[in-house]
């Protein structure tokens, strides 16, 4: 099998894992936490579910970016895509949105979630501040995932839309 097809396959699988967990956090876990705290079951989520989901989430994000970057490189359009040049601009816009999202995962969401979940020591005040930063970064990624997915689909398969 063509290595490029394998790479793209892995890119899509990792992307599904990443964005699927992003949507799980935003559409399921965060809205449920209020009720879980109210009936005393939140500890199960923060202790057993969230750390495991975050593990898959952050590494899937990295694999998605690396396989996507490799793909653009093998096509010889890595530079044009990230420079948003001509015909490579649509997929480049998707690549930039994905890159911003990867940054948010590793620099904003994960370090702050470690404090919220008690993986690293933090005062209650720090936890509250970290929770707010992590939530906004996660919501930002949810927002960015919408145009990101559009450009990932329209870039390689919808050239007529941009002419």
């Amino acid at each position, binding site marked *: 099998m063509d290595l490029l097809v394998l790479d793209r396959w892995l890119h899509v699988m990792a992307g599904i894992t990443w964005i699927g967990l992003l949507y799980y956090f935003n559409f399921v876990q965060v809205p449920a936490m209020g009720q879980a705290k109210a009936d005393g079951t939140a500890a199960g989520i923060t202790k057993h579910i969230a750390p495991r989901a975050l593990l898959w989430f952050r590494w899937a994000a990295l694999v998605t970016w690396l396989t996507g970057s490799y793909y653009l490189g093998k096509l010889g359009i890595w530079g044009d895509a990230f420079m948003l040049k001509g015909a490579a601009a*649509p997929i480049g816009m998707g690549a930039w949105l994905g890159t911003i999202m990867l940054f948010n995962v590793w620099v904003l969401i994960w370090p702050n979630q470690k404090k919220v979940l008690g993986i690293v020591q933090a005062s209650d005040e720090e936890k509250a501040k970290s929770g707010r930063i992590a939530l906004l970064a996660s919501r930002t990624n949810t*927002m960015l995932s919408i*145009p990101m997915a559009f450009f990932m689909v329209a870039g390689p398969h919808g050239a007529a839309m941009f002419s």
Partner: protein
Amino acid sequence: MKNPLDSITGTIISGFVLTIILYFVVKNFLVAAAG
């Protein structure tokens, strides 16, 4: 003004609005500029 990212609905609407804006930016300023 309320932050649209504080609600799921606001987040999704913001995503679609951003998609439309970026689509026209890419189409009219980046792809078209290259001829």
